[in-house]
């Protein structure tokens, strides 16, 4: 029996069953700052390096995969011709107006649906159905109703984001602790005061977060709209580049789209930090 006992002793010096310390695999804990920066750098540099490596090896036709340098040059050329700024501004304008209108409508409706079961019962079924209709499927109708200028593009972005905003904001309202509302009643609060002075400030961080997430959808839709009918815009530039087989222009536009989205994301995070410091850990 003594041999059995020695066999069951753990081989390493760790306490049996104890949790071993780790740096990389920490769950929901901070990692050292320099490791964080290193990983952030790797996340950008490695894909860029692979792209550069593959394109410079000459195994792929440069017509299909332009090198990072070619793409950089294409971006500079587009900029020099004035297209880049013009297209970017045009796409930003469409997203800005469409998303602003959607935000303006969705915040009060979302809060109202989260607060009042009656309004939720009234609107949730229809929104639940309409939101499953893919927004691009509305394009033909919008073109028939609204012409080919800006209104159909703005309407498309509006339709594609308003319902998701509403539902995400509604869900956020449901997470308000019941006791916070009850406390307000025992302090003499009326229902409208609970709505405007407790529920609304409580969900503002969630509203900003819903906007941040759904912003991505509006960038998808602006490109879709411009691919179909537009005189300018980043989507239009991509479809023109396709006609002339300019993959370098396409890459340049894609990178610009990615960077704009990233900046908007940062903007919303910054907005959250300065407007609701209490909500940040």
């Amino acid at each position, binding site marked *: 029996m003594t041999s059995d006992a020695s066999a069951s002793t753990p081989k390493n010096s760790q306490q049996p069953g104890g949790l071993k310390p780790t740096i990389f695999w920490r769950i929901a804990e901070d990692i050292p700052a320099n490791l964080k920066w290193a990983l952030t750098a790797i996340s950008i540099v490695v894909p860029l390096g692979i792209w550069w490596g593959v394109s410079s090896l000459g195994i792929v036709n440069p017509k299909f995969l332009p090198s990072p340098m070619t793409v950089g040059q294409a971006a500079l050329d587009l900029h020099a011709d004035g297209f880049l700024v013009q297209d970017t501004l045009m796409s930003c304008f469409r997203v800005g107006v469409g998303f602003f209108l959607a935000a303006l409508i969705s915040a009060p409706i979302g809060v109202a649906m989260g607060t009042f079961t009656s309004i939720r019962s009234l609107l949730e079924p229809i929104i639940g159905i309409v939101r499953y209709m893919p927004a691009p499927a509305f394009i033909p109708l919008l073109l028939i109703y609204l012409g080919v200028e800006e209104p159909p593009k703005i309407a498309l972005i509006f339709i594609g984001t308003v319902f998701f905003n509403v539902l995400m904001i509604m869900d956020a309202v449901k997470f308000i602790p019941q006791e916070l509302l009850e406390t307000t009643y025992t302090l003499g609060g009326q229902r409208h005061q609970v709505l405007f002075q407790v529920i609304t400030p409580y969900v503002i961080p969630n509203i900003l977060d819903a906007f941040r997430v759904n912003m991505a959808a509006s960038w998808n839709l602006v490109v879709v709209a411009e691919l179909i009918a537009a005189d300018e815009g980043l989507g239009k530039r991509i479809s023109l580049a396709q006609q002339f087989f300019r993959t370098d222009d396409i890459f340049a536009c894609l990178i610009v789209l990615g960077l704009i989205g990233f900046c908007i994301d940062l903007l919303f995070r910054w907005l959250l930090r300065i407007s609701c410091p*209490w909500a940040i850990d």
Partner: protein
Amino acid sequence: MHLEVSHLYKHFSTRQGQLLVLKDINLHVETGEFVCAVGASGSGKTTLLRMVAGLDTPTSGKITVDGQPVIGPGADRGMVFQSYSLYPWMTVAKNVGFGLKLQGMAMPLRAQRVAEYLDVVGLSQFANAYPRELSGGMKQRVAIARALASQPKVLLMDEPFGALDVQTKETMQQFLLDLWRRTGTSILMITHDVEEAIFLSQRIYVLTARPGSVQREVFVDLPSERTYTIKRQPLFQGYRDEIMDLLRETSRLGVVVE
């Protein structure tokens, strides 16, 4: 002030059928009194207090404050929850003044009242701090100041110190007792901590296990000026043994019934 609860019944409809939680509760609180109700977990203490606050409706029976029946929540019955429930986006001062703001008190007067109650709970230096920067005991003091600032007729407290560690709890009990003696507020407090109830109150309602009903009314005949050393006195220990025996007895009965 005269708070009266008479022949109060409450049952909930659950999937297992009707659940009788409170059975024929009769109790009262008079001006300036500190009254506690103790009972086992699940005996319906929270339900009772919520109905007095007007946050829940009785199945039958009557609750009146100064003869007026309670039909909903109102600022005349301040409430302190176990979970503090402070508004996280408001500073301590804004939290304390929020009830006054809801009731439409104008600013110079409001600021003055807030300063007064921050002083009462000893948190004047933290007026501009946010709730998440405070310890549990401090949060609960903010919640108490917020409830008191509206100068309610009666302060309702549901296990306000249940989430605190033993030392903080003791400090807070002493603090609450001093505050009560200084302000003369009428208090109805719910707890399952028997020593806490004896230390703080002048009268104790001992509830039976589910369904909760008043099993005995205990008059605590201790001097109103108390410090924690009183817990070592034989009189105090006599009350504790009496109430503990009652609670033990009903929980045993409960097991037999179920």
